[in-house]
């Protein structure tokens, strides 16, 4: 199997070196960039599997990099932030980042998040037994990881797709916050409720004709979500 290639973007050279040393030691190929412009260039020039992106940088900051990339690509993005407040986190996730880590962080934690992101990219083991799901104009082809609404193809990021697949496979069952966090992200995420809130929001904006009155994904307040087919 080919080595996975990770782009690390941070204006602090000590952090860049720290991260690349650790990533290389675990078998990843690493490209580095010290500001947003370099990062956008690298993403356009090379094939990249995942981006680790610092948020506070000169020239083009991480938030803008994230927004630009999401205009045309679903590469998993993990944000590193030295701010660490809840608003910042939600803002980054809403812009399309897949994950958010606050500095300082443990190496094991970072590696686990990288694994989670790659898991969403889809390997056969998580593909469901049934081959497709259809309800009221929403069609999911599990084998091809293809989603359409009334025949129109919808582009989802890997994490968005994983969440939708989980809801579809268990349609008409109420999935609790912790069940969803556990199965889509991983055990260590079980208290990150805002991840769910943001990603359900992102899915609704892409799938629902009227995101404020959802037809597919329903909120069960205080409990969780379900994809209703009746």
């Amino acid at each position, binding site marked *: 199997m080919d080595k996975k290639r990770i782009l690390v973007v941070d204006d*602090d*050279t*000590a952090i860049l070196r*720290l991260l690349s*040393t650790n990533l290389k030691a675990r078998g990843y190929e690493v490209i580095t960039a010290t500001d947003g412009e370099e990062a956008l260039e690298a993403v356009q020039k090379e094939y990249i599997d995942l981006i680790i992106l610092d948020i506070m940088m000169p020239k083009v900051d991480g938030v803008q990099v994230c927004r630009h990339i999401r205009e045309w690509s679903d590469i998993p993005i993990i944000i590193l932030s*030295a701010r660490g407040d809840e608003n910042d986190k939600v803002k980054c996730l809403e812009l399309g980042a897949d994950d958010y880590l606050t*500095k*300082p962080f443990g*190496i094991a934690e970072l590696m686990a998040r990288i694994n989670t992101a790659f898991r969403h990219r889809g390997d056969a083991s998580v593909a469901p037994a049934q081959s497709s799901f259809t309800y009221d104009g929403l069609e999911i082809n599990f084998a091809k990881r293809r989603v359409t609404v009334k025949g129109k193809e919808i582009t989802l990021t890997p994490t968005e797709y994983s969440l939708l697949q989980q809801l579809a496979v268990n349609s008409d069952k109420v999935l609790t916050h912790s069940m969803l966090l556990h199965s889509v992200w991983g055990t260590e995420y079980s208290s990150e409720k805002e991840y769910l809130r943001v990603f359900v929001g992102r899915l609704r904006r892409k799938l629902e004709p009227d995101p404020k009155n959802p037809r597919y994904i329903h909120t069960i307040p205080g409990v969780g979500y379900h994809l209703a087919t009746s």
Partner: protein
Amino acid sequence: MKGRESILVVDDDLDFLKIIKLILENKGYEVDTAPSANEGISRLKERFYNATILDISLPDADGTELLTKFLEIHPDIIAIMLTGHSSVQNAVQSLNRGAFAYLEKPLDTETLLSVINRGLEKQRLVLENRSLMEELEQRNKVTNTLLSVSQAVSESLDLQQIVDSSLEKVAYYTGIRISFIYLYENDRLVLKGTHGLSRNQVAQMEKEIQKDSGFIGRIFKQVKPIIIDDFMNSTDTSLEPLKKKGCQSFGGIPLSILGESIGVMGVVTSTTGHEMTDNNIELLTGIGREITIAVRNAQLYEAASSAKALQELDNMRTEFLANVSHELRTPLAVIKGSANSLLQPDVIFDESTRQYFLQSIDKDADTLTRLVDDLLMMSRLEAEALEVKRKPYKIEEVVEAIRDRLDNLTVKHQLQISIPNDMPSVNIDDIRIGQVLTNLVENAVKFSDDNTTILIEAESNGKEIIVSVSDQGSGIPPELHMKIFERFFQGNGSKAGRRKGTGLGLAICRGIVETHGGKIWVESQPNKGARFNFSLPLN
């Protein structure tokens, strides 16, 4: 119903006078008669007549001349000339002089009545027109005055300026010399300004009045003007200091808008000055309204700008915390990440990588320490709690004491020091000023290429000494010359890959220099290097 119209008939024919009096009185007019010009004139001087019937040939005067005299006394009087057939020429002349009509004797009663009627009708129109014009002029004057006051008071958003210029305008437009304004503040009426009072009188006036006490309080509460004609005998103590200078009456005007009182304007007229006519009260009330609007605007502006200032302060605080968090977390991330890397069981790093991680920990622990020191220094400076131990030092001694540190910082640069021997001693905290110099040299190193020169100079101008640090680096655009001294400002020109500073260095320099009573500034243009100067006063 208007009063009876009056007619004066002057004729030397006494029978004629009797008959005409009968005829006219019969028609409802009030009639007086005079048999001679002289008596006519003295009658006319006693009272106003609406009309007069004049015989053109009187024994004691020429009718035309008499007409002229009559019109001088009552320009509005309707004059009807009576002529004999022979004096038509004179009659025409008298029309030119201002008579309303002439009638030939013998009189036709119908014609006479009809002419009188038309004459009085014309007079009514003229008088009515004139009173309308007068009213219009009065309105116009009030409007112009209000406009001028409104313009004057709305030129400023400063409360005191508005009050002062208002009182000045009141004096200018109404001739009232003494005036004052109380404004409602914190449940009391506070004296905000006076005009035309001596310093002594102002000192005696009550600075604050309960909102419901005395005349001022009553005007405020009832939102109605109060006029005291016999002001000298009033017992209200708050007005006592105004009573000198032979004052006569007092007028208090509420300052109010939409039924809400914001204060009271008081005026005092002296015996020689104006009286409190209705017109004046109306004008003052109008002026009061304009003042109220301007004062209210100023108060709202004040409230809004203090809310804005608070908001700005809050934003700065949030920004500050975010910056501190960022600056602390970055070295912490390196320390934690490096230590954590060494602790991971799944990877064994080679010796040089392990060394590298340990060095990173060591270096960033130093960075953290410096950051904490800088933050502490910054907070002391901001709380004005920095201790400075001042003693007389020569600037050369200060540089010498930090020479090793400076040499270490500038190993890749050429450090030149040019300080004249005859520099006077200056009263400073040598450690703090040494820190300023170190920070400036450190910045110079950070923003200029290797092998370029960094120059420390000093000069004295008898009042202060000026120390400067110049480099040949990337320079600073003029719009940043002030900004760079703000805390957490980060220059972009720092060489790539270098560790950023704390963003506090220049802010600390400024704080230390200002604590010494000096100033710090930069002279620089992009790509032409920068010269940082600071001055230290020689007391």
